[in-house]
């Protein structure tokens, strides 16, 4: 031990277990370590792939189903690849029956997302970078309202929309979903960190408050505004409870209502509708993945309501 080179010592401490079994023959010890590492990695990847199979299952199932003829989707055991490929189901996705709720959803969701960013962004900016009477009270009002589950608002919101004569309109879905205390809070927290000097410089250059907001503040706050846009897109796209109580006519159905209340008698077509319904959120997810992880880290959960 005494005449061993010093460099051998850290190797022993690095992995006691393998060092003990390897004894005094370093080459075979290294081999064994490699082998153990290999076994460990194989296990890890087997586990990781197993989990991936579970989470990939819904999307894979939907994708392989939409190209199958109706009789084949009931086949057991299910076939991974269709015996006969058909585009009949996709034709359903392009029919007016499906496209109407699809565009209703798209309209309501896109308008909501834009308004959410604008309305809550302005409010967050005001609370973060301006001083005015009542600022603290308003902030704490917003903060405390975040404790209230939105089901509390369900009945009065319905009554208010009824009084405004907006029942059964897409506008009702938008205006009940725009103001979000949670979004304001998030935006405010983020904007508190923006440097005052930059805003000051813009003002000294004679930029109006509106220009400062749109040309200086918005670009600097893109990450948090992106998060708000994404989550409002997801929550409105999947919004079921509000349309359920506010919308009656089939012509104004959004996709969630359509999927539940107007299913086709052909399950293959319903699968196709479900798949196409998943495409817009999937695209948003793929394009803005970066904001997603930020957003989840900021807010805790991916979805609400």
């Amino acid at each position, binding site marked *: 031990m005494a005449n061993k080179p010093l460099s051998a010592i850290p190797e022993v401490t690095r992995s006691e277990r393998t060092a003990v079994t390897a004894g005094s023959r370093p080459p075979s010890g290294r081999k064994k370590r490699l082998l153990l590492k290999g076994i460990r990695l194989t296990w890890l990847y087997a*586990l*990781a792939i197993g*989990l991936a199979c579970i*989470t990939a299952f*819904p*999307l894979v199932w939907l994708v392989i189903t939409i190209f199958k003829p109706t009789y084949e989707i*009931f086949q057991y*055991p299910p076939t991974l690849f269709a015996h006969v490929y058909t585009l009949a189901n996709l034709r359903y996705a392009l029919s007016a029956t499906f496209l109407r709720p699809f565009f209703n959803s798209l309209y309501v969701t896109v308008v909501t997302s834009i308004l959410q960013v604008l309305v*809550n962004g*302005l*409010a967050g*900016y*005001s609370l973060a970078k301006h*001083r*005015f*009477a009542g600022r603290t009270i308003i902030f704490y009002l917003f903060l405390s*309202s*975040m404790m*209230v*589950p*939105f089901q*509390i*608002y369900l*009945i*009065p*919101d*319905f009554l208010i929309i009824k009084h405004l004569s907006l029942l059964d309109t897409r506008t009702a879905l938008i205006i009940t*979903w725009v*103001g*979000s*205390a*949670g*979004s304001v*809070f998030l935006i405010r927290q983020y904007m508190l960190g923006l440097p*005052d000097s930059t*805003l*000051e410089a813009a*003002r000294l250059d004679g930029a*109006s408050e509106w220009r400062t907001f749109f040309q200086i503040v918005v670009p600097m706050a893109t990450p948090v505004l992106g998060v708000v846009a994404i989550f409002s897109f997801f*929550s409105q796209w*999947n919004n*079921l409870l509000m349309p359920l*109580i506010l919308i009656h006519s089939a012509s104004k159905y959004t996709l*969630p209502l359509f999927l*539940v*209340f107007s299913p086709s008698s052909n399950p293959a077509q*319903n*699968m196709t509708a*479900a798949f196409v319904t998943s495409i817009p959120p*999937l695209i948003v*997810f793929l394009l803005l993945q970066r904001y*997603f992880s930020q957003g*989840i*880290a900021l*807010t*805790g*959960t*991916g*979805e609400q*309501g």
Partner: protein
Amino acid sequence: MAVQRERSTLAPGRTGRKVSVLPYLFLLPMLVSFIVFNLIPVFWSLGLSFTNYNLITPAHFVGLSNYRHALLQSSLFWLAVRHTVWFVLAVPLGVAISLSAAFLINALPWGQGLFRFIYYLPSALSSIAMGVLWAFLISFGSHSILSQVMADIGFPAGLNFTGPNLFLAFVLFSGMLVGWGPGMVIFSAGLRGIDQELYDAGKLDGATGMKATWYLTLPQLRLTLMYVIITGMIGAFQVFESLFVIGSLGTGSQFGPLNSGLTLVPLIYEKAFSYMQFGYASAIAFLMLAVIMVLTIISMRLGQGGTALGK
């Protein structure tokens, strides 16, 4: 002049401020929306909970009788509570999956991004579309595709997931099976945030492998863990969508056969919009609010944002 006034509203200590309307103007749209759809409704709802309002006849003050009815006389209310509690109790189990998956991903030398992407995938799809898929897999009762799969892997043949016995369990487990992606993302962000020096120091004391996980990593993640569990529980209290979609499409009755999938929010929805018992439904909503408020205050104490993003 205008510039002067606007500048004076800047936050950092400025003297000689003049009152500006701009910050109020910025706040106005949000404030209006907040007052109309949040502030007024809370008090309106509270007021309704003391009445017998039914949309048709004028409301009469009935005191605490709605609350008394829910808590003391209604077996349906307690049934809904019991069902809801199942969802709440299942949360730690789902969080355990999230955490394990985060550890797993962290241990992979390559492909972390890919696996994280696949694990999050079900949460990126439309949750309603997922419901349509689940409903398809259990439709046709004991002859459903899922029943046959279960029989093939050793469970009794002919399990009926659309029946009153298994419907709730199915909705619970199907959600848990694919719903742990967001939690995993939070945990892996937390894991990456832990200072490597901690492990280097731990190694000197012999903390490697499982020991390091137990004594070094978990304590570091304690707050994140609590936060994820509590926000998860708040979400579990509000479960509605999956029960409604899978119930309507898979079993043919909203929330499953014989109220087998009736939880609190479905109960509120049914009482209010099927039976027009707006007062009673509001009372149930406020009982739920009380519990959720406690949980929310705890989660806010644990830091990070709130729970109500998006709405």
